[in-house]
Each structure stands twice: as C-alpha cells, then as structure tokens.
C-alpha cells in the first residue's frame, strides 16, 4: 500500500515540471520595405503544474524589441510575447532569434523570419552542376513588383562555358533566365548579370552565380 502511494507521489512529482508550450515558436513573414517593421506574437501556455516566471527575454539586435505584459504564469495560464523587428536599411531574408529564460533555468528559443521583399526578387541566386554530370539546362525566376514598372532588359554571363538566355514570361512581372553549360568536364565559375531598366535614372543590375563543381 505504501509503495502504491509512493508511485502516485512520484508520478505527480514528474508532472510538476514547469513548462511552457509555444503555439508557434517559428514565425515567417513577407513584407515590403515600406512596412518599416513587423510584429510577431508568440502565444504560450503553462502546461506544467507549477507557476513559471519569465526572468528574461533577450534579443540580440537593437532592431528587435520584445514586450511581455506580465512575468508569472500559473499552471494552465496562457500568455504572449510580442516581438517587433524594425527593418532600417535591411532587405531580403532576415532572421532574428529571441531567447526566453525562466526562473528555473529553463530556456526557450523563438525564431522570427522575415523576407523584406525588394522590387525585384530572383530565385535561386545560384545554380550549379556536379563535374561530369548531365549538362542539363537550369532556370532562374525573376519576379518584379507589377506596380514598379520594372523591365528586365538582358542577361550576360562572364563565362562562355555557362551560357545564359533570357525569356519573358509576363512583361514587367516575370522573367526566366536559363543557364546551360556547354559541358561539365571541368570546374567553372560564372557570374551572370541581370540588367533592368529600373530605376530610370540609374538602372540597376543584379548578380546571380553559376558553378561547375
């Protein structure tokens, strides 16, 4: 009988571990530079049987701030951490890690990913072939913000062994660059320059890369 009580006690002691369950610890966003910032809300619930006190929420960049309305959460209680990431001059894919520390040495990691979309996005920005592999054609997709009035005007390859060709899928919106090696018998490196007409006063070009490795 005593032992049965003992089992029950130990089982409940095991359950007593304080823990936070995060609804979505990794969050992804798509934004444009004009948005200026993004705010992510990380909801959690104390799924343990002891209160949890959040001792510290740490961001590693001055561009990211975290807000917590209260610090101690009873068993079964839910809460939320609000994280704001201010873009500044940052563009493209950005990732911010936030560390949340509890009073019993627990640590949780939150992950904020944001693509600050530019007027022209290119994907992928790198293509490669293994040496002695099939020299099959590969494609790179270029997408332009329709309202910006961008046109992709040409593509140049720095290597004659990696020839690039531009086709228009939808004028002002979508273009395809195809890249094809003449052969894959030896290593090669090329830089492809994608030229646009935007902005009109200083047209911008973009670089993508090709390798035979």
């Amino acid at each position, binding site marked *: 009988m005593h032992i049965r009580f003992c089992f029950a006690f130990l089982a409940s002691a095991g359950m007593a571990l304080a823990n936070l369950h995060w609804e979505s610890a990794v969050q992804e966003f798509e934004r444009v530079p004009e948005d200026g910032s993004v705010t992510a809300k990380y909801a959690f619930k104390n799924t343990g049987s002891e209160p949890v006190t959040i001792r510290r929420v740490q961001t590693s960049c001055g561009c990211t701030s975290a807000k917590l309305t209260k610090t101690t959460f009873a068993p079964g209680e839910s809460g939320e951490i609000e994280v704001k990431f201010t873009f500044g001059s940052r563009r493209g894919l950005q990732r911010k890690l936030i560390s949340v520390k509890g009073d019993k*040495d627990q640590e949780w990691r939150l992950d904020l990913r944001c693509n600050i979309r530019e007027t022209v996005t290119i994907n992928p920005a790198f293509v490669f072939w293994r040496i002695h592999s099939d020299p099959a054609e590969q494609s790179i997709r270029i997408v332009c913000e329709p309202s910006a009035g961008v046109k992709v005007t040409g593509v140049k390859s720095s290597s004659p062994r990696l020839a690039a060709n531009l086709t228009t899928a939808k004028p002002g919106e979508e273009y395809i660059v195809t890249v094809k090696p003449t052969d894959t018998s030896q290593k090669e490196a090329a830089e492809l320059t994608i030229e646009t007409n935007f902005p009109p006063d200083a047209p911008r070009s973009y670089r993508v890369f090709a390798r035979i490795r």
Partner: protein
Amino acid sequence: MIGRILRESAIIAVLAALPAGVMAWQHLQVKPEGPLAPGEVRLSEAKAWEPAVLWVDARSPAKHAHRTIPGAVQIDPENWEERIPALLDAWDPDKRIVVFGDREGDAAATVALRLREEMQLSPVWMLHGGFEAWLRP
C-alpha cells in the same frame, strides 16, 4: 515486519532518486549550451563531419581576422554582396555548411537562412553556441 519496512524504504529511496536523476541528466544535457534552435548543430557533431565541412564565419571581418575556426570563410549580412563569390568558390557539393556567429547569432541565423533560401545550398547548419562553443575547452 522490520525487514518489510526496510525493503519498502529502500524502494522508496530508489524511486525518489529517479526523477532527481532525470532532472540532473537533463540539466547536464542542456547546460551550458541550452536547447537547439531549428537548424542548429552542436559542435561535437559538426566536428565529426570534418573534413567534409565548410565553416562560415558570420561575425565581423575584424573578429574573423583576429581569431576564427581554421579554414572558415567570412561573410555577414553587411558584406554579403561582396563576399558571396568567395564563399561559392570555397563551397563543394559534398561539404556541409556550418555557419557560426556571436553567441546570440542573429547574423549567423540570417546568413544560414539566405544560403538555404536564396542560394538553395543544402545542408546548411548553424553552430549552436556560436564561436564561443569553439573556444570552450
């Protein structure tokens, strides 16, 4: 009767030690490095992959010049455009990329994400604990 009490006491003592043991084991596993974030790898595992590893240093060029992991290529979000050709030249499809930065690792996280998403390189890992993990004996 005394024998039964002693036996039960011994069982209770052993059972009571179990959760403490589990907690101690978890503590040792977690400390000092903490939990792995998505896409992170511990140093011991990354070292086991050598020489098929391309180490990528996402700290500043000054910190990289001062001290780094031997053979590491430096690139960070600030000099991405300038440094990406050198990284691609050092890259080999048979190598795993392991990006490291400062302890908190925003720069490393961004570099790893861009290598994966923009360059479509794979596999790309982040070193858990950053360069400090390498410095620890």
